[in-house]
């Protein structure tokens, strides 16, 4: 197995104890832990360079502006993009709201369709529901195959010129299934629909290059890739960003303000009203540096090996059902499961007593839970700092859950 375990020393939190046990952090799909380099970069910014950006001619302001815009260049190049088409947002949710409001309100109307999948996170559903209510458009859903990947076999049936937006995730935050980017992309192009890729779970875990995937917009969050909370990125094709309206007005995003009207600053600043999250951008850039140094190919390989091992070990536990692809080439390192009649919250509580952090609940994907006919699932998710021994501890603790619930 590829060995990244020496990296663990870079993450101070991994050496703490929880309930008398060494922390086993298996909740990176919710948020990731931060390496020292990210913490230091943000600390250094506040200690040495803190000032507002894009205003004033003083030295600190210039330094802060250089750091903020430098961060944009780094984050952009991490996904093969130009800085001019990379907007800093509060995160993936805000990015998708920008698209839904800024593009959707003007381009959607009565009878138009927004094609999504049943596996979407609420962040890629609710904004579209709101815009649908404003415009008279409707959401149309693709469902799943027996292996929990998106079922594109009846795509023809739902695909016509009424479809104006195709919005889907690159990797499900519940099943771990990878999204059919090529198939849905081609389908969307064939009817001239806008393609929106929710890459919150994809960009942190595998190499993504926007010049190699044909999408109009892509959104992701820093905190799911070793960076701080409160910042993410929206990448868009230049012409799409140009035709998109700003959804927030204020300082920073304007060119000229008159009494009745204003004109906008060029992209990307048109979408960044108010003082931006500067320290967070600096932390985001440090996270991208860290990931680049490890190598995204290495991270993807590590997670694939770890997931293979986890699926194998979990299959040894009686009455345990995994909700996700069995084929590791169709999935990432997010594993949802249920165990006998033990409710996921109870599983999470029992694991927590062993210092193991997993998520239990509907994972902000209630339509998917309804579709799978489960009230909730437990979810273990892996990242570059996880090791096989942690999978073993997970399995031991799940066996203990069976004992506590009196299952022989």
């Amino acid at each position: 197995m590829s060995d990244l375990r020496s990296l663990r020393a870079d993450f101070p939190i991994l050496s703490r104890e929880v309930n008398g046990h060494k922390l086993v952090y298996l909740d990176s799909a919710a948020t990731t832990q931060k390496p020292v380099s990210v913490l230091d970069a943000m600390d250094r910014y506040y200690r040495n360079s803190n000032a507002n950006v894009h205003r004033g001619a003083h030295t600190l302001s210039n330094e802060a502006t250089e750091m903020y815009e430098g961060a944009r260049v780094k984050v952009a190049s991490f996904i093969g993009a130009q800085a001019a088409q990379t907007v800093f947002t509060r995160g993936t949710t805000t990015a998708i709201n920008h698209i839904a409001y800024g593009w959707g309100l003007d381009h959607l109307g009565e009878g138009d369709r927004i094609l999504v999948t049943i596996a979407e996170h609420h962040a890629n559903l609710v904004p579209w529901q709101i815009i649908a209510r404003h415009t008279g458009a409707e959401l149309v859903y693709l469902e799943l195959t027996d292996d929990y990947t998106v079922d594109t076999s009846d795509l023809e049936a739902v695909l016509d010129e009424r479809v104006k937006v195709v919005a889907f995730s690159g990797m499900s935050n519940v099943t771990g299934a990878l999204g059919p980017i090529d198939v849905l992309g081609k389908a969307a192009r064939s009817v001239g629909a806008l393609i929106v890729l929710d890459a919150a779970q994809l960009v942190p875990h595998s190499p993504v290059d926007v010049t190699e995937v044909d999408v109009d917009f892509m959104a992701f969050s820093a905190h799911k890739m070793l960076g701080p909370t409160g910042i993410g990125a929206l990448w868009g094709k230049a012409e799409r960003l140009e035709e998109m309206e700003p959804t927030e007005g204020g300082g920073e995003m304007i060119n000229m303000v008159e009494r009745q009207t204003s004109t906008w600053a060029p992209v990307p600043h048109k979408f960044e009203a108010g003082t931006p999250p500067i320290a967070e951008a600096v932390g985001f850039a440090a996270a991208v540096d860290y990931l680049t140094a490890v190598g995204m190919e290495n991270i993807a390989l590590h997670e694939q090996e770890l997931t293979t091992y986890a699926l194998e070990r979990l299959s040894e536990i009686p009455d345990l059902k995994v909700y996700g692809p069995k084929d590791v080439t169709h999935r990432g390192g997010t594993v949802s499961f249920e165990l006998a009649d033990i409710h996921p919250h109870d599983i999470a509580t029992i694991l927590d007593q062993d210092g193991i952090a997993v998520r239990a609940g509907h994972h902000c994907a209630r339509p998917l839970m309804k579709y799978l006919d489960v009230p909730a699932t437990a979810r273990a998710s892996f990242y570059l700092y996880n090791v096989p021994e942690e999978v073993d501890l997970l399995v031991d603790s799940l066996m203990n859950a069976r004992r506590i619930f009196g299952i022989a």
Partner: protein
Amino acid sequence: MSQLDELYREVILDHYRNPRKRGSLKGPHVHAEGNNPSCGDEFALDVAVEDGLIIDAAMQGQGCSISQASGSMMMDAIVGKSIDEARDLTHKFKVMMTIVDGDSPVDPERPGAVLGDLEALQGVRRFPVRIKCADLAWTTLSEALDRATDGDR
């Protein structure tokens, strides 16, 4: 007993697996629903009230062992009681769970004296994030009782 064994007492697992009074009421009743959006616990109940007395109740919903066992035990505890008694019981339960301030109704010398089976849920207090699971049924009951006394049927 470990904290976990304390939490998942046999009586709790029994109520979880064999909930009392699961279903719906046919006759006149008030209905209330509650849920914990963050974790997905859902609880609903029907309460039949006659002359200020709870003559029957039934519960629906789904969720973790704590939320369902708390609801099931509550069903056992409230049928046959007056609305005032049920409200008092709700208050005592919330005091026990330290959701509201008050003197603990649980006498450590005589466990089971005041709240009966419900005292098995004391173990939840050690798990602060789970208190809302135990509380869900009772909050929903309060809403139902308010409705019953508002004459909103």
